């Protein structure tokens, strides 16, 4: 059923009795051409693009929980393509372009909202770094503006300009950045994939990867063995766990990142603002809650919950940036498991096993990458060659010394 104002009207007049499931609840078939492990944003997007753009017919997405139960459903919903390095920049801009046409493409309103992403800077060194970054963006045709203090003040007058420990000297603005209703991304891709006959199998946990003669033949799951021609892993924070089933050890650590939402408020902040003198970023959802976060807690974790000290640090940075936050209340905190890579950049590549494909290492930046990640992973799976914007995301880059280290922190995931 196509969604539109008309379908809403028609169904409303008929008592909303005729809505169809957004996706089926299929039984697993014995064999698929492609199995994607992980029914999160990236896995569902991969399935969608495989079916829609690359003509692959017989696809399953296996999800151990419910679709969107991982990071696509627990992030701060920010999209941006303000990347510095040539290995990243075109990929994230592809993602931004896909976001811009996504809703009409998959016929689901994910509320892609380009209200701008503003990164504040507080020192000459930070200004220079933002200058370098903004110019790198401009070189690839990505929109970027470097604002001075007065321009930032005109845009967001309620930041702490007068009493700050680290005065705001300006900001790097990407007007095309913004937010997206995160759950809807998973649902839109799921519905779009399902309508193209992709089997989305929820409650199906992969417990083993069966191999013969160095090739994957299928997966053992909580719902029995399922054969496949190609196996694609998009398991985010659980990537190391799944890869281990194929005896692969990955350059990843799983870390917990907390995020938060405040009580609902009338419009308070328009775009996304990122503090430069502490770990804090905030936006306001269409529903009215301030959605914000900070740094990862800093230790390996699979627990999806964080630490009070980190909560306090985030609140401190928030209040330092916007003093008026003080009397507003935080409603809920949550934790997601980040697949932190050793250089802070992702991996979309084949593996040493011929028909096993890997999509991992998204750190805390996976959400914004969802469309391009799915598109490029689908390209890789279908054509056995990387998409032109994702050639740098090789698994062997660590061994060969071609790192994509935006922060320059080296092989220390909790510093990325």
């Amino acid at each position, binding site marked *: 059923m196509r969604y539109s104002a008309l379908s809403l009207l028609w169904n409303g007049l008929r008592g909303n009795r005729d809505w169809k499931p957004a996706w089926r609840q299929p039984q697993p078939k014995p064999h698929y051409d492609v199995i994607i492990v992980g029914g999160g944003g990236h896995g569902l997007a991969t399935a969608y693009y495989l079916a829609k753009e690359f003509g692959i017919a017989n696809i399953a997405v296996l999800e151990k929980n419910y679709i969107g139960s991982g990071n696509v459903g627990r992030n701060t919903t920010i999209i941006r393509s303000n990347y510095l390095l040539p290995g990243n920049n075109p990929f994230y801009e592809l993602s931004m372009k896909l976001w811009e046409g996504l809703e009409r493409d998959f016929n689901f309103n994910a509320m892609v909202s380009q209200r701008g992403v503003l990164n504040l800077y507080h020192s000459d060194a930070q200004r220079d770094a933002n200058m370098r970054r903004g110019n790198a963006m401009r070189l690839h045709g990505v929109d970027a503006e470097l604002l001075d203090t007065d321009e930032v003040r005109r845009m967001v007058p309620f930041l702490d300009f007068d009493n700050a420990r680290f005065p705001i000297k300006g900001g790097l603005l990407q007007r095309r950045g913004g937010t997206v209703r995160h759950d809807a991304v998973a649902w839109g891709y799921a519905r779009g994939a399902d309508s193209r006959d992709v089997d989305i199998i929820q409650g199906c946990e992969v417990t083993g990867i069966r191999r013969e003669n160095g090739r994957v033949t299928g997966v053992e799951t909580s719902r029995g063995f399922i054969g496949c021609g190609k196996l694609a892993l998009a398991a985010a924070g659980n990537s190391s*766990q799944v890869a281990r089933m194929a005896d692969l050890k990955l350059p990843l650590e799983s870390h917990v990142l907390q995020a938060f939402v405040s009580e609902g408020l009338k419009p308070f902040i328009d775009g996304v603002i990122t503090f430069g003198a502490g770990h804090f970023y905030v936006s306001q959802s269409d529903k009215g809650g301030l959605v914000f976060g900070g740094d990862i807690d800093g*230790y*390996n*974790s699979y*627990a999806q919950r964080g630490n009070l000290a980190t909560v306090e640090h985030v609140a401190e940075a928030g209040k330092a940036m916007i003093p008026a936050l003080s009397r507003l209340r935080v409603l809920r905190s949550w934790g997601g498991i980040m697949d932190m890579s050793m250089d802070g950049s992702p991996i979309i590549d084949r593996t040493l096993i011929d028909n096993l494909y890997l999509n991992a290492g998204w750190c805390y930046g996976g959400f914004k990458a969802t469309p391009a990640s799915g598109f490029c992973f689908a390209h890789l799976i279908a054509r056995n060659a990387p998409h032109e914007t994702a050639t740098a995301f090789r698994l062997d880059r660590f061994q060969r010394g071609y790192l994509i280290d935006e922060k320059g922190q080296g092989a220390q*995931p909790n510093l990325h």
Partner: protein
Amino acid sequence: MASLVPCPHCGSRPKEEFTVKGAALKRPSPEAGADAWFDYVYLRDNPRGGYEEYWHHTAGCRRWLIVDRDTATHQVTSCRDAASASAKEHGA
């Protein structure tokens, strides 16, 4: 983690006093070869469960510790001084 880390020198102390480095791995010898070094610097078991990692009591005794911690439950099962721990390994 835990909110508290049982430092063998200082007792139970809040996590904010510590700096986490990551997996407590043995540094290869200089001649170990490229693969061993790649493994040491870049690859991680990243287990769900028991995990030995280096924590530094930065705002305390400034000793590097090996914390044995469960990454699924955050339970800390042991915490020992890294020097004495590795000394044990070398001496045994």
